[in-house]
Structures are given as structure tokens and as C-alpha cells.
């Protein structure tokens, strides 16, 4: 601070400096707590969010003993499957009006990763009839995995390889059960409250779409 010689001027300068300092700090404090607008006061929203494995559409066949014998011991799968992953059609409607329709594929470049869904829909408050369907696009007769031949145990399986035929069967069964069902449907009446979000998600245990809220 400058120090003017006259006491009155000194005091005036000191007061001005103090006021300027206080004002600068106040500005910093205000800039640090600005009420930044976000959502409209009457905004209501439904959110679709889930992640699940797409079904594997594949054709399986049991390998012959000769074919198995050609492979190194640790690579001797009993059943060979080839195929693709299913794709799904998401259809969302509110009071009969379609608000979204899209194709959902598995993640990754080859669509072999779990598929995910994250979508927000802003709707007017009130009671709404919400219908969500998530349907496999490929026909069920494309898929022969469910009728895949059971892996046959062969005599050479011993030591760490023992029981691998059963494990192969279990793995295929586990994959099938972890995949999202061919058809998911939710048709419900929701009361949408301003400022609140209703979440529609896939309950992996119940294997169905459910509504969540806090």
C-alpha cells in the first residue's frame, strides 16, 4: 500500500485498500458458489440403464475322436461352436407414443463384448404408461446352441484335464443363462414426479426389467 504523508489521506487510502481487498475476496467467494442452472423445475425423467451379455447364436457340433486327437492336449474341446452374437431392438413408448427405437449390439468392434444401454428420456410430470420392450432381432431357429450335443468324455482326459467335458457343458450353460433373454418387456404405469428420476433396469437374477427409484 502506498503511504501518503497526510494522515487523513493515509487513512482514506488504507480504507480504500481494505475495501478493494474485501471486494476482491468477496468476488472470489461469489464466483466459487454461483447457482448454475441445470434442470427445469418441472423436469421428470425416466432412465434406462443396464448392461448384459447378448445371446450367442451359434451352431455346434461334436468333434470326432480323430479331430480331437490332432489338437494339443490343452486345446481339446469336445464341441466346436461357430456363430455370432444376437442384436436387440429397443422400443420405448410413453402413453402409446414411441419415444425411442434403436438397435442395441454388443460392445467392441466385433460386438462380442457385453452390450450396454444408457438413455435418458425427459417426460412431462404425471401418470404415464411406459412400455419398454427389448427383443432379440434374430429368429430363434437361427440358434442351435440350445440343442448343442453334449461333450463326450474320452479316456485320455486325466489329471488336470479330467472332467473337462462336463466343464465345457457347464460353461455353455452358464453363458446361456448369463445372456439377456430373447424378449424383455415392461409395461407399467409410472407416476413421474418433478425433479425425480425413475430408473428402468435389467434385474439379472430375476431376468426381467424392473423399475427402481429412491
Amino acid at each position, binding site marked *: 500500500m502506498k503511504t501518503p504523508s497526510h494522515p487523513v489521506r493515509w487513512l482514506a487510502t488504507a480504507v480504500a485498500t481494505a475495501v*478493494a*481487498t474485501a471486494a476482491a475476496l468477496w468476488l472470489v467467494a461469489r464466483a466459487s458458489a454461483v447457482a448454475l442452472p441445470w434442470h427445469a423445475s418441472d423436469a421428470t425423467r425416466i432412465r434406462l440403464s443396464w448392461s448384459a451379455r447378448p445371446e450367442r447364436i451359434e451352431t455346434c457340433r461334436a468333434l470326432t475322436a480323430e479331430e480331437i486327437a490332432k489338437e494339443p492336449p490343452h486345446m481339446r474341446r469336445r464341441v466346436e461352436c461357430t456363430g455370432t452374437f444376437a442384436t436387440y431392438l429397443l422400443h420405448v413408448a410413453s402413453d402409446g407414443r414411441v419415444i425411442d427405437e434403436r438397435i442395441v449390439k454388443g460392445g467392441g468392434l466385433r460386438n462380442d463384448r*457385453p452390450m450396454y444401454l444408457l438413455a435418458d428420456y425427459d417426460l412431462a410430470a404425471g401418470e404415464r404408461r411406459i412400455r419398454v420392450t427389448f427383443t432379440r432381432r434374430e429368429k430363434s431357429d437361427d440358434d442351435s446352441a440350445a440343442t448343442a450335443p453334449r461333450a463326450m468324455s474320452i479316456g485320455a482326459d486325466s489329471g488336470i484335464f479330467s472332467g473337462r467335458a462336463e466343464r465345457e457343458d457347464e460353461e455353455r450353460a452358464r453363458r446361456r443363462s448369463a445372456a439377456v433373454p430373447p424378449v424383455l418387456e415392461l409395461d407399467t404405469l409410472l407416476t413421474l414426479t418433478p425433479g425425480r428420476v425413475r*430408473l428402468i433396469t435389467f434385474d439379472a437374477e430375476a431376468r426381467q426389467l424392473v423399475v427402481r427409484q429412491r
Partner: protein
Amino acid sequence: MSRTERALDRVLRFLDAFANRFWGWRWNPLYQSGTIAAAMLLVLLISGVYLLLFYRVSDPSASVAALAADPWLGSWIRSLHRYATDIFVLAAVVHAVRMFAQSRSWGRRSLAWVSGLVLLGVGIASGWTGFVMAWDSFGRRLALDGIRLFDALPIFSEPLSRIFAGDPPVPSAFFFVTTFLHIALPLTMGAGLWIHVSRVARPVLLPPRRMLWTLVGALLLLSIVLPAALGDPADAFSLPTSTPASLIFAWWLPLSERVAAPVTWFVFAIVALGGLLVPRLTRRPREGALAPSVVDPALCTGCNQCPQDCPWEAITMVPRTDDRPTLVALVDPAKCVSCGICAASCAPMGVGPPGRTGRNQLAAVRSTILPAITAGAETPIVAVLCSRAPARHVDALRMRGAYIHTVSCAGNLHTSVIEIALRGGAPGVIVYGCPPRDCVGREGPKWLHERVYDDREAELQARVDRRRVRIATAAPGDLGGVLASFGAFASDLASLAQPSRVAVEEVELECETIPVAADGDVE
């Protein structure tokens, strides 16, 4: 100087003048923007360590709310941490704008410019993680918008935004990673700061002690009186109408929430690229006023003063190629910013930018200043000003009868010029430097003071009457101070006897050319 630089320089000078009116140039925080940013980093580090002791990644909202509700330490330390973050960003931005406006962003200063921008970016990213750690409505908003940008990149197979969808709750791992980044990023800033100042000699990292403690005290007071806002705990199922946001960190939200993520990325990339390319876009030909210093080996006595004074470590002493037993100064043109400070550090006047060496200055005194000041009936006081001095100051001093002599930097003024002006009849010489922390040559006012009063080479000779020499500061907006110092100096001179005029030819310079024989030997 480009149009943009000029425009920003004008804005900066206006703000400097405004701040100088209230705080004076010694306390003007705008001059200390770089050191204030570094000081805030220290405050953040210390307050952050305390906050970390009470932060829980398993329940971030509740732990921060408990801190904010603690009236003894938690509330104000958290507020201090938060305000220091804002001041860090503000100070760093002001510092960058100042460097740009003063054409200090290219050439030798490129590394400092680029590393400074990176430091600012890392600081903002670290601040972002800090706000997210609090996990209030603003933290959630920042997290959502930030993660949305990353989701637009082909990095993750599943969008990270899903962890904020509300089912299931945000995992502790997210807050663990955020906390890790919040600690790791500032640590990298320590290394960045070292790079930032690596090309300058004697870097100043902190503001003057009184200013530092006053600033910290003021922030503490602010933290107690106006604790930093904390929004409602983050809730994925709620749609708040507003969030208590820090404008300094939320300025990009209105853009990012209205446009697609790639557009936001594009804007960020353009801004970042533009900033990083500033050294390339603003560089100038190294000639004229920006030509690097050169050394005349015949004059260099190997005294080692110019390497000590050079603010950019551009001068080294190397073995001579002739038979003289001393070393000789060598200027690295790539490191020299042409500040001219070396010219005034050299008693034999053997180094300096072309046209601004001590010998060039003496020639100018003989040919221009002396004839001008001795032409009238009354010999005027010689006022030496930096070329960056405000025009109003120059005009006002001229109106009061001063003879104006302009130098590129007060640190470029060789003390022999002062001596010759006085011996030539000038009643006094007053040298106006820029405020020390606003000197484009970094250390001009400091070295000038030491050369005039503390016998630093090339010192003002003892035979010169110090009562006839004055050093003052010409700060924007402080015309009153400039005129007051001039008035006081004139008044002091009036009480002294009339100076006797000595024929300039009789002035015995401290160092004349060392005679060198045709074969290179010193005679």
C-alpha cells in the same frame, strides 16, 4: 507486437493501473500472479493433507459434509482449500495473459510457456477431481459432463457414465481412483514447476513474505466468514434445478451440456492447440531490437559478471582462443532474449545486444543527450525511462521540464551514462524502472539498484555524487507517484550547489578499449 498482444497489453495495463491505485505497485497482486499461483499450490498441498485424513472413499458425501459442518477446523480448512484452488487458476491465467501480452511467450521462453499451459491444464484437471471427490450435486455434474467426454472416445467398451446411473451405487473404486488422481496430479505439477522455471536464473517461486502471509490470512478470514458452498449430496435419482458451482471450474459446462461431446472436444482441442502454438505464432525474427547479445572478445576481461547477471543463463565463460590468460564470455543466441542487462553489467562494455551496448549508449549520450540538455539556458534533469513506461508518465515528466531518455530496460542502462550526463551538466539523473515483478527483463530494476548503490559491477563510480542520482518506479496508474518522486528529487537537487560542467572529452571512463596489437596480442 501483434494486434492481439497489443490489445491484451492495453487491458492488462488498465487493470494494473486500477490495482496500483488501491494496492500500490509493491502490493499489486497482478504483478505477482505467477508466484501467487505457486503459493496457492503450497496452500493446497498443506490443507489437502489435512482434508485427506478425514476423507472416506466409501462415503465421500458424508465425510465431506462432516468436514463442512465442523466449525473448528474442517469447515475453514475445506473452504481455504477450495478458495486456494480458484485463486490458483485465476492467478495462473493472469500470469499466462501477462506473458503473452508482453511478448514473453516465444523463443527462449517457449518451454516456460508450454510447460505453464500444461501446468494450468493439470491444475484444472486436479481441481476437477477434487470437486468430484466432494460428491455433492456440483461434483456429480462435473463428473457426468467430464465422463461424457471420455465416453465419446473409443477407449472404453462400456460408457463410464453408467456408473452414475443410480443402479448400482457409484463404486468406491471410482472415488479411490479419483482420490489417487487428485494426489498424483499435483505431484506431477511439482516436476512441471521445475521445468517451468528451468531456463531462468534465480527463479522467484513465492511472493514477498508479507504479501504471502497477508494473502493466506485474507483467505483464511474469507473461509471463516464465507465458507465455501457445498451442494446437496449427489443423488442419481434427483434433477436439481441448479448447483452451487465454481465458475472457474464450471465455465465449460454450459457449452458441454448443449452440444455433442465431439464438439466440446473440438473446442478444447482448438483452444489447447492454439495455446501450445503461441510460441510458434508469435515468434519474431531475431534481429533489430530482438537481436541476441554479442561479445567483443577484445574487450572482454573475463570478469565473469555478465553470466552472473544474465536472467536467462544465456552467457557462459569459455577458454579464449588468443593468448590472454582469462576466459571470455560466450552468448548462446538461442537462449538470449535480448534484454540488454548484460550490457550494463560489463565495465569494459564488451557485451550487449547490437546498438544497446555500453559503448552504443555512451555514443548516444555524447551525440544526443549532452547537446540537448546543454542547449538551453537551464539544464534539465535527465529522466531515464524504460521503453514500456506509460506515455502519460513520459508526457507528464516532459511537461515538468525533464529531458527524457528511453532505454529498452532500466537494467540495460550503463552507469557510465549517468556519470556522463551528470558531468555534462545535468543537475540530476532519475531512472524510472518498471515495477520489479513486471520487468520484461526480469531483473532490470534489481541490478540497476545494486549497480548504483551497492557496488555491483559495472558500478556507478564512487566519484559520482549519489545525491544527484535517484531510482524510482514508474507503474501504470501511478502517475502521482511518478510525479511525486520527480518533484522530491527536483526539490532535493535545488538545495544542492549548481553542478560544474566538465567537458565530456575529459570524462575518464572506467574502461576504455583494451589496445590490441595487430597480431592479436594485448599491448
